[in-house]
Each structure stands twice: as C-alpha cells, then as structure tokens.
C-alpha cells in the first residue's frame, strides 16, 4: 500500500474514532487513545513529508554512556527534589506558626532568617525538579487552541505589577496585529518562557526600560512562526560570558550570583523548553548598554472555520442576563465556581451540576432558561447529555451553549438538532459569555423582565462604600481621589503578587499579600472582596489548600471588575455632588 493511501485511511479512522470514543469511553481514556493515535499519525506524516518533529532531549553530554548515567542521575534528582518539597513545606508552615508565639526580638530575627533560607531552598528545589523533568524529556507539551493576544496581555500585566516597586523602570509592549487570533500550541509554556526572560530583565535593570515585541515572523500554510524579542537597557553581559549563558549551573559570574540570587538553572530550562517545541533562542548584549533575547517559536494555525467562530463574537455593550436561570454543567470545580461567580455578578441565577444525574434532576425541579454545558463530562459527553435532555425532559427545548477546549467539537452542524444553539471555545472571556447568553435568553425573556427593576437590583448590592471614607477625608475631594488611586494600586499589586506566589506555591507569600490588602478593602467596606481575601488567607496560613486559594483568587479577580466599576461610579458621584 502506498504510504499516502495509508495516511488517508488513518485520517478516516481518526474521524470515526472521534465520534465514537467520547460517547463510549471514559473521557481520559478517550483522550489518551486520541493522543497516542495522533502521535502515530504525526510520526507517519513526518516520514512522508520529511518534516521531522521529534522532541529533542536536552543535550547534556556527548558520549552515549555518559548520557545514560546522566539520565539515571537526573531521575534521582527529580525524585529527591520531589521528596524534599513535602517536608520543606511543613517546615515553612511551622516557621510561620512559630513567628506568632510571642518571641522576643532576637528570636524573631532568627526565625525570619530561617524563613528566608527555607524560601530560597524551596525555589531551588522547584527549579531542580523542573530541570530534571525537561532534561530527561519527560516534560509534555500541550497542543490546544489559545489566543496569543490574551497570553501576551496577561504576561504584560504581570510584568507591570512586578515592576510596580521600581519607579525608574518602564515596561512597553509591541504586538503585531497580523498575528492570527487563534493558534494551537502550549500557552502555559509560552508565558513561562516570557515571564522568565522579562523577570531576568527586571532583576538586572535598575533604571531604564524593558520592551517586549511580538512579531509574525513567517506565515506558512499550516503554521506560523512568532518572534518574541525581550530587550532591556540593563547592565548587559560581557562577550566571553555570553556564550555560557544557557549552560546549566552558571550565572554570568559569581559576583552576579551573590547579588541577584537564583539557581542558575532558569535560562537552561527556558532554552530546553523552546527547543523541545522546535523553536530557538538567541541572545545579544553589550556591557552597560543592555541585553536582547530573541525567541522564535512555531505554532499550528487553527482552521478557517475555527477562526470564524471567534470572529462572530458580537461586541455588545449593554447585555443583561439579570433574572435568568442558568444551569452550568461542568465537572471541573474551579471552572464551575468561576462561572457561578460571573453569572451572579451580572444578576443571573446560576444552578450548578457536576454530572448527568445532577443536571437531569435540576432540569426536572427548576425552571431553567439556558444551559451552559461542558463538552467533556465524567459520565457522558455534552452532546450525549443534550440528546438525553431532549428525550427525558418535557416542555419547550432549552437552549444549550456547549463549552469546549477542542475546536473540532465546535464545528459539528448536526448538534443543532439537540438544542445546542451555540459553542464557545474555552477559556472564554466574561463579555463573550454574557453576550452569547444574552442573545439566547432575551428573545422571550426580555419582555417579562422589567429592565429598570433589574438595574435597581444591581445597584442595591453595596459592593463598596466610598461615602464614609469621603466623610473621614472631611469631604476633601482630592484626598478621596488619591486614596482611591492607592486602593486600585494595592489591588493590582495583590493580584500580581498572589499570581507569582501561586506559581511558586509560596503559602507564606500569599498569606502576607492577603493580609496586606485587607486594610485597604476594609476602608471602603468592600465586604465581598474581603470575604475572598479572608478565605485565601485562611487557606494559605492554616491548610495549605492550593486549589481553594486558586478558586478564591479567580473569584476575587472576577468580582473586582464589578467593584472597580462601582468605585468609579461612586467617586464620580461624590466628586460632582460637591
């Protein structure tokens, strides 16, 4: 059989597999099956088309035998690092508790020194763990659809919060508008690479600027090459040291190491991550003038149809989902809670279901206007569940919006028969989500809903209270304005710091950040936000519950958007009133 014929044949199997597997298999089995199948197909494809896409291992040593020992060593490092992390976590937790036991000044100094030491050890262990994972080729790379602009915006936001303390450093971003809106690749690894490079720049620039430029380097039929340029005006690196910069265990010189800290593994990890995705990284620098890193990474293009789905998003400004009963069927706890808080924020009534059984039960007992359904569920698929609902639930068909991380799933026309009216690619932005919901509920909902009433409902929720703060300012308008600016800065700092600490699993850092923001929130009686912060503080100080923290953190960010709007409104009202 001709190889090309074989490939055709396999493509057919693939599409067949796609339809059947999700319904019959557990979702993780199906995903694993699909992944292995894809690997097989890709291997074959590369043989036919010569486009070799195997993951290269980090080249640590040239001789084969040495390589083997090296790998055993690396496994050992990985295991040991992992084992060290757990007791280290407890040590850090107990140190925190120790601090609150009425120590005298000298004792407290000693405990704080231990705290600093254990924190840096923790970072070191984390880097080692990651290094060994990458070096042994055990790091996996996702192939998911994502919006590059969103990833870059998030990175830029974080960098701005990191720079917040350094007044004399400016951060700027140039983003090529020709970059496709949706690409396929690993967004988390992309932000890791950029955060690391920009984080380094922040360390080495005392005064000056840091710029991130993202360009469309090359546009081919199936993929694109993006170029990321991180340029700083920092201390620079001498020529003879530049060639060693990507070697493990080496920061440019020992002196720098003492001043700036770190394990010296960062850049070698970054280089490996880039190369394993078939990209490349280069550096140029002039001592005293600054350093520039160029990274080129390939990304798969999403199909034309997929791109269309996203551009269909209508940009409506006034959407109202107030009063609508919306059922969220989603198995992931975090996504479910996030969705709940988004809907509540807008005055909707969310009902939450984790699986098929709960979903059907709620549909039988409650009057639901719209269903948001995840494609992948533990006991069924979104599509299958839509079919079941049609059969088992009486009454008019309830519109269903299907949420999926897989763009292919969004393209099946036949789904429309089961009441699936629309699709959204995960992760979805709040405005997109609201616009879509609005579109499907308001056809019949809007007349029965008195718009003024719903507006009042929202206004009645006192998200913040600037009035008493204004009185405490003795009604001095510019002081109130100044305080509000400080409040916003504090919140941005809290969001940024917590995000960084979350990545590092640094519980004491999170606890402290939460403690700090409380004071400002209390001053404006932002009780909703305060609630989330207190939960975060409790989870980080007492139970080290990372998932819990993440949920509350996501809720905080979601809720803050509305609070900020309210703050600005209140501020305008109070300032104009005088």
């Amino acid at each position, binding site marked *: 059989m001709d190889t090309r014929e074989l490939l055709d044949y396999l493509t057919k199997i693939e599409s067949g597999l796609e339809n059947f597997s999700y319904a019959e298999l557990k979702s993780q089995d199906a995903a694993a099956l699909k992944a292995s199948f894809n690997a097989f197909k890709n291997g074959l494809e590369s043989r036919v088309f010569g486009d070799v896409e195997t993951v290269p291992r980090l080249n640590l040593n040239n001789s084969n035998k040495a390589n083997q020992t090296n790998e055993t060593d690396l496994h050992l490092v990985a295991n040991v690092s992992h084992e060290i992390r757990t007791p280290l976590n407890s040590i850090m937790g107990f140190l925190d508790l120790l601090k609150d036991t009425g120590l005298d000044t000298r004792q407290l100094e000693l405990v704080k020194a231990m705290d600093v030491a254990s924190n840096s050890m923790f970072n070191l262990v984390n880097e080692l763990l990651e290094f060994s994972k990458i070096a042994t080729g055990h790091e996996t790379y996702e192939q998911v659809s994502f919006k590059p602009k969103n990833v870059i915006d998030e990175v830029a936001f974080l960098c701005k919060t990191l720079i917040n303390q350094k007044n004399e450093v400016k951060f700027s971003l140039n983003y090529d508008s020709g970059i496709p809106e949706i690409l396929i690749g690993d967004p988390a690894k992309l932000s890791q690479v950029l955060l690391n490079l920009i984080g380094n720049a922040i360390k080495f620039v005392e005064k000056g600027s840091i710029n991130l430029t993202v360009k469309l380097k090359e546009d081919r039929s199936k993929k694109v090459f993006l170029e990321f340029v991180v340029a700083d005006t920092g201390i620079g690196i001498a020529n003879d040291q530049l060639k060693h910069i990507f070697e493990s265990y080496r920061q440019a010189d020992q002196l720098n190491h003492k001043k700036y800290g770190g394990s010296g593994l960062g850049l070698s990890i970054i280089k490996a991550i880039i190369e394993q995705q078939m990209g490349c990284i280069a550096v140029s620098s002039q001592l005293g003038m600054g350093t520039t890193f160029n990274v080129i990474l390939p990304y798969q293009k999403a199909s034309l149809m997929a791109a269309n789905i996203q551009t269909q998003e209508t940009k409506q400004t006034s959407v109202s989902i107030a009063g609508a009963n919306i059922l969220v069927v989603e198995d992931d706890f975090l996504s479910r809670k996030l969705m709940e808080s988004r809907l509540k924020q807008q005055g909707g009534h969310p009902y939450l279901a984790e699986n098929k059984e709960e979903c059907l039960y709620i549909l039988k007992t409650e009057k639901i206007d719209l269903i948001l359904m995840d494609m992948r569920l533990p006991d069924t698929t979104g599509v299958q569940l839509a079919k079941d609902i049609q059969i088992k639930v009486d009454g008019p068909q309830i519109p269903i919006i299907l949420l999926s991380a897989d763009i292919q799933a969004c393209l099946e026309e036949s789904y429309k028969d089961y009441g699936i009216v629309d699709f959204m690619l995960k992760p979805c932005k709040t405005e997109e989500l609201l616009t879509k919901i609005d579109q499907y509920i308001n056809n019949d909902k809007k007349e029965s809903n008195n718009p003024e009433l719903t507006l009042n409902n929202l206004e009645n929720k006192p998200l913040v209270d600037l009035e008493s703060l204004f009185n405490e300012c*003795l009604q*001095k308008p510019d002081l109130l304005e100044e305080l509000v600016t400080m409040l916003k800065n504090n919140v941005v700092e809290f969001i940024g710091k917590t995000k960084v600490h979350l990545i590092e699993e640094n519980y004491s850092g999170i606890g402290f950040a939460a403690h700090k923001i409380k*004071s400002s929130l209390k001053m404006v009686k932002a009780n909703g936000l305060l609630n989330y912060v207190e939960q975060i503080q409790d989870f980080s100080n007492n139970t080290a519950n990372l998932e819990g923290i993440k949920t509350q953190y996501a809720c905080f960010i979601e809720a803050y958007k509305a609070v900020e709007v309210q703050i600005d409104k209140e501020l305008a009202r109070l300032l104009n009133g005088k």
Partner: protein
Amino acid sequence: MDSKSLILAEDDVMLASLLKYRLEKEGFSVTLCQDGKKVKEELEAQLPDLIVSDIMMPYFSGIELTDYLRNQLNSQIPIILISAASNDENVVSAFELGANDFISKPVSPSELLVRVKRELIRKR
C-alpha cells in the same frame, strides 16, 4: 503651644495617607514611616511625643517596637498600636510589653484622634 510630634508607622499607604491628613489637620506634626527600620532610625534621631504603629509591619513589628522603646531606649512615650482584628494574642503581648492602647482595623480616624489626645492628656 507648639505642635506635638508624632510618628505614624503604617505600611499600607492608603490608610497611612488618610490618618496623616487627619492628624495634621488637628495640628500634629506627623512623621510617616512605612516600615520598622525607618521607625528605628527616627527614634534614634529624636523621640516624638507619641507613636502610632501598625502591629504587622515589615522588618520590625509593632510588638518589637514596643519592646525596643521600653526596654532598650527606656522611654515611656505613649504607643498606640493598630491591629488586625484577628491578632488577639499579639495585642496581649503588646500590653505586657508596655503599649498604652490599641485600635483594631478598620481604623476610624476620628476614633484614633480621640485616643491620641487622651494619651497625651494622661501623659501630662
């Protein structure tokens, strides 16, 4: 009567700005310190008439500050501590070390003013 001098140690800029404004409005001369190190430096240069300090501060907490002032500098100038509501134990140890008063967050500036004035009257 010349104005009373006061050190305000608070690391939250928002709260600090509001309190500073209100205290100055009442005629106090206020030195703002954002961390414990700065407080120590100020104290070494010159002792104020009164100190208002947050308990939880970078480098040098309000408790340590109280201890330092009473036992190292042997000074009896009044200290009012600001505490987060949850830190009861801290407040007890602060009193044991010689703090004069405390006020819980959220701090009402008007209440703080009353307490500051009361401490200054007692001192006389």
